[in-house]
């Protein structure tokens, strides 16, 4: 977390739109990447937009128990699920096409394996292995008990490892 993040959050909570724009610029890349991995690139931007708007409206209630990035990721996760529910979509069509052309058969097989699990399983993999959140932080973001998260992660990692 940046040193000035708490100050930016406080200013944004006080209604400073410029401070919030800095937070948006700072966090949009990670949030959009996370959501793209879970619900696909197109839906990801809509979910990210919902998340930022909801975060802006809820900043007055943010108490800083979790870092701003983790709090935002949780809002984004719930926004993505809401979006998918409203759209009635079941299929995932994330960034597989882009990465399938990358070097190495193992990487291609890994991408195929990553496409297979449920949204929650993919989200757990991305947050823990790609974004560096701890198991407890990831559990909080996804609204899962820690034990459930650890079981999910172990099963997904094993499944991906077998496929790679």
């Amino acid at each position, binding site marked *: 977390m940046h040193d000035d993040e708490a100050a930016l959050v406080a200013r944004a909570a006080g*209604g400073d739109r410029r401070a919030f724009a800095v937070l948006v610029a700072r966090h949009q890349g990670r949030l959009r990447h996370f959501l793209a991995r879970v619900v696909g690139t197109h839906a990801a931007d809509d979910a990210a937009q919902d998340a930022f708007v909801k975060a*802006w409206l809820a900043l007055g209630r943010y108490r800083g128990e979790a870092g701003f990035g983790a709090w935002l990721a949780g809002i984004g996760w719930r926004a993505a699920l809401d979006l998918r529910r409203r759209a009635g979509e079941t299929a995932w069509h994330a960034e597989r096409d882009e990465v399938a052309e990358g070097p190495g058969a193992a990487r291609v097989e890994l991408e195929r394996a990553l496409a297979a699990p449920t949204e929650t399983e993919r989200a757990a993999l991305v947050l823990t292995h790609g974004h560096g959140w701890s198991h407890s932080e990831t559990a909080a973001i996804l609204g899962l008990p820690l034990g459930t998260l650890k079981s999910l992660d172990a099963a997904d990692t094993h499944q991906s490892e077998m496929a790679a």
Partner: protein
Amino acid sequence: MIDHDDPFDALLAEALSPPARVPDTGFTARIGTAITEAERSAPGAAARCAGSGARR
């Protein structure tokens, strides 16, 4: 526990890490517009900070 010395964990981390990219100013502007619209369409939204004693 994630072990980045493990070749598979390293491959997984590489595949799932967010790319380093310059912030998308168009997306930031889109958020600003969406916030303006949300505050316009939800009468209570503009006063979201009232309960926290924050300035508007």
